[in-house]
């Protein structure tokens, strides 16, 4: 196999990596925001029992925030276990746990679902840190001027939050480029899986070198784009 064919084959794999990358961002950036809202949710449905403060147990139960607890559990699972394992659960889970037979196409969906669920958890924590760092005076100024809660968040808070969290988002996005290679865990043929195949069949390390160069330039492009975004937001402080 010539270098030329290796490059063309890997370039095809790269397109699939880019597809995973794009769909993951499109899904997880918005989903992360909703997860962040859930994480900050203070709903205490059992609070009515708190009137009876005699027992400590009742005190404990009354302070339970079910939405927040559930989301915290989800985030800790996503951050506390390997993404590779999560992909395998999403892929094999329906069959081994629920007995649903899975079609060939599902391999791709499993990759996308796994990546979106995992990255939404990370993005949620970044959003939360940004939202919680906003000075309360911004909310109060908006409230006095009569902005609704939704207007306040979308027009006043979110643009400032985005500026604050962009460097952290950049970090995650760059990690994502490299993480797309984890799709090999369920044998989805993106670039890295392909490189491994070619390398073992042709007994050469060249595909790995080529794949490495592709990843590197992909990330250069991502870093350049993110820097442009950051510069775009430099018009205010």
């Amino acid at each position, binding site marked *: 196999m010539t270098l030329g064919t290796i490059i063309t084959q890997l370039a095809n794999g790269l397109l699939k990596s880019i597809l995973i990358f794009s769909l993951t961002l499109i899904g997880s950036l918005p989903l992360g925001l909703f997860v962040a809202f859930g994480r900050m949710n203070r709903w205490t449905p059992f609070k009515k029992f708190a009137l009876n403060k005699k027992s400590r147990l009742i005190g404990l139960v009354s302070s339970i925030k079910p939405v927040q607890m559930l989301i915290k559990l989800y985030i800790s699972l996503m951050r506390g276990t390997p993404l590779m394992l999560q992909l395998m659960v999403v892929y094999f889970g329906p069959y081994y746990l629920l007995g649903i037979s899975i079609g060939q196409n599902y391999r791709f969906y499993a990759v996308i679902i796994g990546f979106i669920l995992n990255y939404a958890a990370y993005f949620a924590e970044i959003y939360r840190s940004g939202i919680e760092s906003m000075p309360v005076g911004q909310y109060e100024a908006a409230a*006095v001027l009569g902005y609704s809660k939704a207007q306040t968040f979308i027009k006043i808070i979110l643009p400032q939050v985005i500026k604050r969290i962009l460097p952290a988002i950049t970090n995650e996005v760059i990690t994502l480029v490299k993480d797309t290679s984890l799709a090999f865990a369920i044998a989805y043929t993106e670039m890295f899986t392909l490189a491994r195949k070619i390398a073992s069949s042709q007994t050469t390390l060249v595909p790995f070198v080529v794949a490495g160069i592709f990843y590197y330039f992909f990330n250069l492009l991502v870093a350049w784009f993110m820097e442009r975004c950051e510069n775009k937001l430099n018009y205010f402080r």
Partner: protein
Amino acid sequence: MKVLELNNIKKAFGDLSVLQDITVTVNKGEVVAIIGPSGSGKSTLLRCATLLETIDSGEIIYLGEHAARTDASGHVQYEDAEQLKNIRSYFGLVFQNFNLFPHYSVMKNVTDALISVQKVQKGKAKERASALLEKMGLQDKADCYPYQLSGGQQQRVSIVRALAMNPEVLFFDEPTSALDPELTGEVLKVIRSLSEDNMTMVIVTHEMQFAQQIADTVYFMDAGRVVEKGSPESVLQSPKEERTQRFLERYSTP
């Protein structure tokens, strides 16, 4: 005509009782100055009046319309969201630390709420903003962002932002205490010009001389109560209460 009535307001944070039965009435065109030592509850009172804090007991009435009332069993009842939105259009608040929106230009800071809350036409909003900015000597700052302005300029923009909404009454919470001494003058001048236009205002301030000059009524608060109220002459020059006298002594000796 009464623009604002705060009747028997009580407010506690946990076990700390911060406002204990406060009653304040503000008539149209009246300038009220609220003075008092740190921690006496002045900011909390303004925050209750501007609906940033909820009261535990009492009544808040703007132009005869209730924002909050207390029923016979002692429960505070706020009006529904629709009515509170309406009530909010009656007042403006100028914060100690400005709270301008950093991502909006001066022009957008002033016009955005007009356009997206009061649904004023964009062109009309800009006209109104330009006129007010001009009046405050800020006409050449319309395209600046808040970080490009001095503290005094930022505070003047925040006053314009509040004024643009055409409030019936404007609250100020220590509008100059975050400013360097050489910048307080320009902000006080602006507030003085508003009083000449008969703007109804409630001003929490530590500037005694300013209060003396501008206020129609001065309230002296201490430990969550109104200790003394009256004309600036009576409260500031010849206070009856010992607590007021002691407080003012600190200001008369430079």
